[in-house]
């Protein structure tokens, strides 16, 4: 439907996969590090995009990121579970947290929903800071190492980029599916969507939980990559940056999520010389985008083609 113009994404993914596999031959460790961090953000923003696609602005994605990260870290450090088990349990626990938070939060709409998710995000972050005996509090936790061969940056690069490409593929398939069209219906008019028989509550909770799972997976990957965890990584500021990425890129579009990641991560990096001022630049880009391109960059392009098609007949 709306994303038909981008149905060639499968080819793009295959091309990207090819490039990814040979990239370590040509680029140094620093750039591999950048790609790993961007891939982790792709997981976060693609996950958040499922929720924003329905017109709900969630501001607690960083909290789910934290739940996944702390679960994976604690399992690895305290229980000694294998890396994959920690990663998967972290992902599912974040998904479970998503379900528990989503259930009451989706009783609200619009700004109220955003405020409730912001509150839950702040509560979880406070827990990360204050449950000293479990989370290590302000000191954080160290020594969270991945198993062989993933302590090599190159291998970890393949792992994380592989997950990011899989997330892009899943997101693309989801938005093109019948379920994806139901998300569009909810965004367009939730009351009408319910009246024609869409179980909107189930759709919203599914998306919120799946988005949280993606964030949890990203958390597990991140913590095993930098071998350290601290509550400061999961503050609401990160949730805002992720939301800004989705809104600028274009909600409800996989391409938009990728673009949004590039902007949310890339822009502050490019303007690092400006210190904290770089976030002012990101804010200005957000204001300009929502003022002139309310559908986001990719959303506007997709809608332009959609309208053009409708005028052609």
């Amino acid at each position, binding site marked *: 439907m709306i994303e038909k113009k981008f149905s060639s994404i499968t080819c793009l993914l295959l091309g990207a996969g090819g490039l990814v596999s040979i990239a370590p031959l040509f680029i140094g460790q620093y750039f591999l590090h950048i790609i790993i961090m961007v891939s982790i953000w792709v997981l976060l923003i693609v996950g958040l995009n499922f929720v924003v696609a329905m017109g709900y602005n969630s501001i607690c994605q960083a909290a789910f990121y934290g739940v996944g990260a702390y679960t994976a870290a604690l399992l690895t450090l305290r229980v000694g579970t294998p890396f994959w088990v920690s990663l998967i349990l972290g992902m599912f626990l974040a998904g479970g947290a998503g379900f528990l938070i989503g259930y009451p939060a989706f009783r609200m709409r619009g700004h109220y929903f955003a405020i409730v998710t912001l509150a839950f995000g702040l509560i979880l972050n406070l827990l990360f800071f204050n449950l000293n005996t479990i989370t290590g509090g302000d000191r954080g936790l160290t020594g969270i190492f991945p198993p062989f061969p993933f302590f090599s940056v190159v291998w970890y690069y393949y792992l994380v980029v592989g997950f990011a490409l899989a997330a892009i593929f899943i997101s693309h398939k989801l938005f093109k599916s019948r379920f994806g069209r139901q998300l569009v219906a909810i965004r367009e008019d939730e009351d009408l969507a319910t009246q024609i028989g869409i*179980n909107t509550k189930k759709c919203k909770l599914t998306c919120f939980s799946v988005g949280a799972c993606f964030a949890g997976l990203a958390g597990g990957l991140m913590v095993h990559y930098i071998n350290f965890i601290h509550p400061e990584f999961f503050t609401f500021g990160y949730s805002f940056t992720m939301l800004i990425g989705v809104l600028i890129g274009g909600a409800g579009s996989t391409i938009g999520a990728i673009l949004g990641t590039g902007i949310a991560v890339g822009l502050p990096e490019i303007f690092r010389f400006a210190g904290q001022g770089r976030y002012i630049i990101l804010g200005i880009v957000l204001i300009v985008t929502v003022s002139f391109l309310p559908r986001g960059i990719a959303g506007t392009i997709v809608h332009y083609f959609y309208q053009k098609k409708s005028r052609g007949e």
Partner: protein
Amino acid sequence: MLELEKITKKFGGIVALENISFQIIENEILGLIGPNGAGKTTLFNIITGLYRPDRGKVIFDNQNLCKLPVYRIARRGIARTFQTTKLFFNLSAEDNIRIGCEVMGRIPEDQDIRNLLSLVELESKRKKLVHQFTCAEQKRLMIALAVCLQPKLLLLDEPTAGMSAEETLETLEMLDNLRKDGTTILLIEHNMRAVSKICDRVVVLNFGKLIAEDSPGEIMKNQKVIEAYLGEENVLVA
């Protein structure tokens, strides 16, 4: 097919509906008329599960609908249109219908969508965005969206409001065809010509109370209805 048993609904101190009971028989077109604020749309909202009645039951195919969520009621075969147009305005007519068909578990072929849109004479505009449609076209598309849900019972809230005489006639013809295809219709309408032309029976509400239930011809002669709603002049016109 649908039986309302002593439906009562209050909003604070206002009694919107009081002890409303009537039946809709399979394959009939039942008109629901009354002055503004009589409770017609509230009754639609109760049947479709948007409001819960304070008292009474809505029995559809031998099941009480009162505790079912809105989407389940729609999936059981009750579809509705709205007084104020409600559609997915930023999508094409085709995509509106596609979403409706998919909800009911069908994967519609292009031809199915064309057929449905030709029913409301919008086939040539199937790729157009809905917000570009005229008011009458939007109303017709709203009916098509309801029809694509393959309802057993179709609730239409003023489907001809804002239409020209010619468009009204076309819409009535379409409703008659739907009935012939086996759909039962509950119709809210202010146009008494339309009501008398198409309805088998008419139920009249006034201030939340049922004041008459009869054939259109008898309703036109009913003194209570004339006083509460129709007025002598309108009866003559109709």
